[in-house]
Structures are given as structure tokens and as C-alpha cells.
């Protein structure tokens, strides 16, 4: 196994984060604070409680998921897209490094960044609300699995994309709407029965629900269904990545 190769990619990607600290860490913290001010204070003052907990606390898992999903995708997709764009990918393709090792480097770094980001958002939330976590290990497991699987998705998008527009189309036009419609800022109980059923088709609902359960033991769907969903998604993304490297899809001509 090319351990030095994995570490080289991992360190390279982490160094990129250090160079772009403002957009990687500071921007999400500011955005999250704004969500707490607007949703938590302004709207939350009118919605007293959801499922027995304060509105400010209710939106914390949704906010974490929103950040994890969008940043995992953008970090990993940019990480592999940029070498393609500037041409430095030649070095990766000519190096004695296997598919899984490249993925470990890129996705490992992107997932690490998301994990750090998730914990920073959690700390930010603690400034605004009295934070309680019923099952911290389950919470951590959800955050790790979500970071990993969506970083894998980002990696796939980065390979698929051949321009910057394609790179941003999925996070902006697919993931963000799904997070907003996935019960991040409301409970699906508040919706009419028809829209409740439609919401169950949104995969992000399962993630938000699972993470919320780890905080407050309230959930839209059973926590194990949520866990199985994210593991299933992780395996699906892994399968696609293996296919990409075996066939050289969009990498080797």
C-alpha cells in the first residue's frame, strides 16, 4: 500500500484548507450564526416549541446537515476537479497509487474538513442555545458517515464535471433544496398529509431525522432506517468510485 502517497494527497488537501481558511471555516460559522439570528430569534419567537423542544435547538441538526452536505461535496469535488482543470492530474495518473488510495487521500481530507466544520457549527450553536446531546456517539457516527459519503459524492461530481458550472449545479440546485425540504427547519408533522408522504421520498429527511434523534430522541423516521440509508448511500458512492477508476471514466483516455 502506498501510504506515503495517501498522506501526500491528504496533506496537500488539508494545506489547501489552511490557505482558504476564510471560506472554509469562517464563512460557514458566520452563515450559521445568521441562521440562528434569523430563524432562531426572529421566527423562533413565534414558534415556541417543535416536538417538545425549543425552535432554536430544533434547527441545530438541520443546520449541521446543511453544512456537512454542501461543504463535503464542494471540498471533495473541487479537490479532484482542480487538478483536472489545471492539468496536474497527469502526476496522479502516472503515480504508483491505486484507486482506493487516491480516494482515501481526497475523500479522507474532505471528510476531515467536514467533520471539523460540523464540530465548529456545534460549538457555534452552543453560543445561541442550551445544547443537549442525548446520544453523542450516535451523533458522531452520523456526522462521520454523512461527511464520508457526501465527500465521495463530491469526488464523483468532481470527476464528472468538465466545467465550473457543472461543479456547482448539484450542491446548489439539488442538495440545498433537498436540505430545506428535508425537515431541517420544520417538522413534517406541520405539513398536510400529502406533502408528508412526498417528504418521505427526500433522502435528506432521513439524515436530518437520524441526527436529530441523536440530539433529542425525536425523529421523523426510525433511527435505524436513517442509519441504514446513509450506509447504503456510502456503499453506492463507493461502487461508483471503483467503477470510475477501473474504467478510467473521464480520467484516462
Amino acid at each position: 500500500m502506498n501510504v506515503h502517497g495517501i498522506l501526500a494527497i491528504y496533506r496537500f488537501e488539508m494545506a489547501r484548507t489552511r490557505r482558504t481558511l476564510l471560506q472554509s471555516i469562517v464563512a460557514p460559522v458566520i452563515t450559521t450564526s445568521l441562521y440562528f439570528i434569523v430563524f432562531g430569534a426572529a421566527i423562533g419567537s413565534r414558534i415556541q416549541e417543535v416536538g417538545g423542544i425549543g425552535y432554536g435547538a430544533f434547527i441545530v441538526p438541520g443546520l449541521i446537515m446543511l453544512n456537512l452536505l454542501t461543504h463535503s461535496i464542494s471540498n471533495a469535488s473541487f479537490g479532484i476537479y482542480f487538478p483536472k482543470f489545471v492539468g496536474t492530474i497527469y502526476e496522479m495518473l502516472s503515480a504508483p497509487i491505486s484507486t482506493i488510495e487516491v480516494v482515501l487521500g481526497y475523500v479522507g481530507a474532505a471528510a476531515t474538513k467536514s467533520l471539523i466544520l460540523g464540530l465548529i457549527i456545534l460549538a457555534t450553536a452552543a453560543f445561541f442555545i442550551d445544547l443537549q446531546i442525548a446520544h453523542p456517539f450516535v451523533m458522531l457516527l452520523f456526522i462521520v458517515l454523512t461527511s464520508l459519503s457526501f465527500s465521495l459524492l463530491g469526488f464523483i461530481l468532481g470527476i464528472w464535471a468538465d466545467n465550473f458550472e457543472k461543479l456547482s449545479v448539484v450542491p446548489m440546485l439539488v442538495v440545498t433544496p433537498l436540505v430545506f425540504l428535508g425537515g431541517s427547519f420544520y417538522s413534517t408533522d406541520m405539513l398536510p398529509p400529502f406533502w408528508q408522504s412526498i417528504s418521505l421520498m427526500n433522502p435528506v429527511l432521513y439524515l436530518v431525522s437520524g441526527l436529530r434523534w441523536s440530539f433529542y430522541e425525536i425523529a421523523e423516521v426510525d433511527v435505524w432506517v436513517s442509519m441504514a440509508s446513509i450506509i447504503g448511500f456510502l456503499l453506492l458512492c463507493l461502487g461508483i468510485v471503483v467503477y470510475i477508476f477501473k474504467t478510467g471514466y473521464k480520467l484516462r483516455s
Partner: protein
Amino acid sequence: MLAYNATSMNSPAPAILTVTGLSKTYSGGFQALKAIDLEIQQGEILALLGPNGAGKTTLISTICGIVTPSTGQVSVNGYDIIKDYRQTRSMIGLVPQELHTDSFESVWNTVSFSRGLFGKAPDPAYIEKVLKSLSLWDKKDNMIMTLSGGMKRRVLIAKALSHEPTVLFLDEPTAGVDVELRKDMWNIVRKLKSEGVTIILTTHYIEEAEEIADRIGVINKGELILIEEKQSLMQKLGKKQLILDLVSPISSVPEALSGYQLEMNEEGSKLIYTFDTQGERTGITSLLDDLKSAGIGFHDLNTTQSSLEEIFVSLVSDAATEQPTA
């Protein structure tokens, strides 16, 4: 070590790279390589010449693992490039034609990254040696985007050398660089050869091949139309010309000298005789005798040998004549 194998003393160096029947057809149907067979000896400098689109970069890219071959096999030091890709790629360094660099990285970081990527443990002393040998040491902390084109080219060479390869591919290393830097680059290549690195370079510049290569291969339309020792290639295909500056201009070549197929310049002050250096007789002595008999005197003579460029042009145009396109 004092012991040596006497039988190997005079035998040619072993092949470090063997290409057998290598073809590449891209998904669009374009056949970039047509059954290439090639053997490269350890420690030699092979120059691959060819016009744009001839298949030089595809050949290099296939050997390095960037392009997937359609058919054929390539082995490096006995290892197959597909099955044993870890071994083969560890032995190969590649300097691409384009200046692909991580603009925001420092020289030191990008070269260290390459070493790690190729599976080698960090070795700051070795990286320092490489950077110093390429005159990059005082730029080690500079961001790559601040360097000139020539310096970026050196950074790419440093990256390719970072994992101590035994085979180095240089894809048009002096494309677009000034004369001084080109000569620097040639010195770097010679130094690497002296350190035992096998070098395969592609180039448009015949002068470059003539200057540094041990052997020369010519690729045209995906086919390796020739591979030969530089000296013997120039001897075999090189024509020599004897140019005579006449004492008095002549209006036409005398009938008695028609057998020599002499050419005459417009003013009639020079006679040019083309002869084959490989021929049993060059015909120079009899020509000079016949000139004397014909009463043609000359006050100076000199000979010129056709350059590799002329050989190359004639080879490529011959190939085009033999294989007319539809």
C-alpha cells in the same frame, strides 16, 4: 566490488524498456499509435522526433499510465505497465509538455508532494540536492505562480526526479524556451545520463536530437518509421556535398563531366558534387582529375554533410509518398 562478468563487458546494455505491438485507438476512432515496437537500453538518451500529432505524446503517456493502450505490451525492467503498475511507475519520471503546476504551492512543497505521491518516504536532503542541481534552491519558498516559464519547467523536472526514477521521460523539454535555457536543459540531461538515468525525450528540434541523443527514433502518423544510432543514421542517410569555388565562371557543365551529375550555381562560379559517404568510392579523386583535364581550375573547396533536419524531412515526406491518404 571488484568482480565482474567478463562476458557482459562488450555486450550492449540491457533493455530497460520494451514496447511490443503497442497500438492506441482513441474512442473517437483516431488511431494514434500503430503497432509500435521499441527497445530502450539502460542509460541511453533516445530522442523521438516527429511532426505535430505524430503520436509522440501518446506513446509516452501510454508508457507512463496516463493513456490506456488498445493492444500490445510495455514492460519496464521486466515489469508489465498494467499488471505491475506500482513497480513500473516507481521507476519512471515524467516531465509533461505543458507547464502543469500547482500555482499556489511553494517549490519545496510541490516537489515533496511528488516524492510522497510516488511512494517514497520524505528525504529533505535528497530534495535539497535535486533543487540545487536544477538551480532552484534559492526559489524553494517561492510560490510557483511567481516563477518564469523556464523556472516552472525546472520545477517540473524536479518533481519528476523527486522519487529517484531510473527512466525519465521529457516531453518536448525545450519547447518555447530561449536558447540559453535550452542549452542549460541539455546540460541537465547530460548530467542525468552520467548519473545512470535512461532518458527518452520527444522534440521538434532536430538540433536538440543531434546535440544530445544516442539514438534517434522517428514517429510519423503513429508509426515508428525509423530507430537508429545517431551517428550511423547520419552516416547512412547523410549525403555529403563537395563545393568547388571556380577560378573562372563557366556557362555550363562540360559534357565530359556529365557522369558526376554536378550542380552549378547561377553565376557559374561554383560546382556542387553530391556523394554518398557509405559508397565504396566517393568519386572525388576521379572528379578532380576530370576537372583538371577539362581545364577547370578552382581556388577553394569544402564539404558539408546533410543535417538531421534534412534527413528527417526526407524520411517524413518519403513516408507520406508511400502511404497516400485517401
